């Protein structure tokens, strides 16, 4: 036990494997072709062959027993490639689901990130358009519902397979109290944060590569200081987001009764850190895609260029839980105690 802020050799291999897999099997053209639904069944089948859907599940359930830190590494590669597969949501749902067809990936699981309304409707569930199983909160219970996916949903900014799903129709299992869902949501926030770090990282790379190539006034536009300084903030936000995400993973995996001592900047509470990571990584992804798109000039606005796909997903993935103010206020309650009355 002592400070070690590098990836483990295993994690280095995982990153290499998945980055390689996605750049071969899912270059941006694949994400583009899967729009507007945002799901590619063939690609998901290849993800199954990799054994990725059950990576984080316990070995006794047929899973890979990977740590949350490992899953964070995988989620970041999903973000970097914007691959149209619901791996992040699926891995989050499998923090408590153990069905064999979910562990194998044959069936897809989604997380209803907001509780059902009075009529038992989960609105705009990420991956809801394609998931066979949805886990979420209905009333004061955590429930799992197996039903036929609609395979379509509202067209949306991030080209995400979102859809409304019923918490009552289908094969319904009550897992326990609503608080049981906290584990799932913490993991969802964590892995979504990691994916957003990946988006930010890819957007930075696209921007830097473009400004080195593009010339105006006889020189690369990347030699202009205004452009350089706008890009220089990006690796800072990306590294900060990556460290915070890994700290959240470490805390969720290793710390019980973590500290919430914000007044001394001593925070080891996993759930708080997961929310912090999501908020920070969302800002990083939004900033990175904003700036990268801007430094592409008019071409950044053209559909033909890839940066616009990252731009839309940076917003899509970060807003699907809720608006950042609501998320920040839930964090405030955890850090400072909730407001009385």
């Amino acid at each position, binding site marked *: *036990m002592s400070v070690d802020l590098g990836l483990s050799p295993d994690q280095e291999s995982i990153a290499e494997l998945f980055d390689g897999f996605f750049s071969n099997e899912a270059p941006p053209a694949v994400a583009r072709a899967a729009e507007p639904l945002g799901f590619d069944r063939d690609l998901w089948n290849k993800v199954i062959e990799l054994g990725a859907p059950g990576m984080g599940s316990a070995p006794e359930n047929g899973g890979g027993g990977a740590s949350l830190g490992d899953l964070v590494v995988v989620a970041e590669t999903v973000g970097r490639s914007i691959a149209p597969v619901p791996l992040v949501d699926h891995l989050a749902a499998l923090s408590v689901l153990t069905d064999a067809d979910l562990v194998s990936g044959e069936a897809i699981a989604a997380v209803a990130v907001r509780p059902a309304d009075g009529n038992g409707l989960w609105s705009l569930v990420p991956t809801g358009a394609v998931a066979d199983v949805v886990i979420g909160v209905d009333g004061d219970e955590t429930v799992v519902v197996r039903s036929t996916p609609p395979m379509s949903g509202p067209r949306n900014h991030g080209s995400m397979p979102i859809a409304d799903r019923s918490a009552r129709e289908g094969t319904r299992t009550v897992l326990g109290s609503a608080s049981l869902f906290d584990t799932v949501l913490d993991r969802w926030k964590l892995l979504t944060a990691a994916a957003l770090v990946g988006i930010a990282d890819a957007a930075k790379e696209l921007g830097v590569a473009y400004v080195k190539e593009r010339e105006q006034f006889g020189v690369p536009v990347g030699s202009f200081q205004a452009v350089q*300084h706008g890009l220089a903030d990006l690796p800072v936000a990306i590294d900060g987001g990556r460290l*915070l995400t890994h700290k959240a993973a470490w*805390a969720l995996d290793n710390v019980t009764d973590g500290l919430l001592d914000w*007044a001394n900047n001593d925070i080891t509470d996993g759930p708080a*850190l997961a929310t912090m990571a999501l908020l920070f990584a969302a800002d990083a992804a939004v900033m990175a895609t904003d700036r990268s798109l801007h430094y592409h000039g008019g071409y950044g606005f053209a559909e033909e260029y890839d940066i616009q796909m990252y731009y839309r997903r940076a917003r899509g993935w970060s807003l699907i839980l809720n608006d950042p103010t609501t998320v920040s206020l839930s964090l405030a309650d955890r850090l400072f105690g909730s407001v009385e009355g």
Partner: protein
Amino acid sequence: MDFSLSPEVVEFRDEIRSIVREFVTPEIADRMHTTGVFDAPELNLELGRRGILERACPGLGKGDPIEMYVMFNELEKAGAPYDGLAVALMIAAVVNKLGTDEQKERIIPSIISGEALVCMGYSEADFGSDVASIKTRAVKDGDEWVINGSKMWTTLAQVAEWLILLTRTDLDLPKHKGLTMFILPMSTPGITVEPVHTLGTEITNATWYDDVRVGDEAVLGGENNGWRTMTTVLAFERGVMGGTNAGVPLLRHFHEWAEANGVFDEPTTRERMARSVIDMQVATLLTMRSAWIAASGGMPGLEGSMTKVFAVEAYQRASRWTQATAGPAGLLQFHEEGAAGEGFVEYDARHSPVMSIYGGTTEINRNNIAERHLGLPKSR
């Protein structure tokens, strides 16, 4: 990744915390704001007496960068005046690395005992960011060097025992090559110190050098090797000697006031506060990363630039919103009735601007990141 401190470092941290509790009193904070000297001799002496300065100094004792990070982070979070200590330790490390045996024996003990401070004379009135162009001259005269010129922003010169001074020794060499660093007692004849008052209460100085005579014993790191000595100083600082978590005490002071005044239930306040807590956490993680790189044998120069750019702006954001949220109470100074955060909200709004200026401005750091991390062409 592992974010836990080893049991040994936890013990070290707890010792620092207990010293902080005893020595960083409201009176000490008061004194720094009335004297303009950001240093607490009694704290330095206690850290020296317990062997902590020697232990934390790179190259001496344990020299564990993680411990150095922990020490300065604890001091900074507590609002302790640690600026003097940070400079002194950094210079002790440089003397240890580049100095002669005679220099080490003469200089280092006075620093690691917590008795002597060091001031740094690099910047001049006309050369700040472009510090390699400085004009203060050192000319050989027999066995002696004769130094003439002036420096600006020589912080702590009014209390320091030692001065580390960047001079030009060769006019014919390219600007980075003709520099020599000296380390000399502030009591050397020919040095004049004039105070420069600042927005942030701290009193820094302009210093003049008129026929200041020293021998070769004052040359640090070799003739015309001054730039290497400069970069060694910066390498030891590594962005882990404070300056990255200044918002933490501010948030604490603000929160106390906001709770007492019913402002803390406002959603806007809570949202901003939560955001600043995230910023402070990220700033400390980036700092910890530099320490970890150094502990693993690397040179976190670039990471230090990255940390500073982020941490400084995070502090400035916190300062801006806390003062705005406090409204008129955010205008009141120390000891005025009703002052938000006992005056710290107002004070931090005056102090925070300097953080993106000294020790390399934010623009210089962004240049570094753009060129060395992103590989962009030299800017125009």
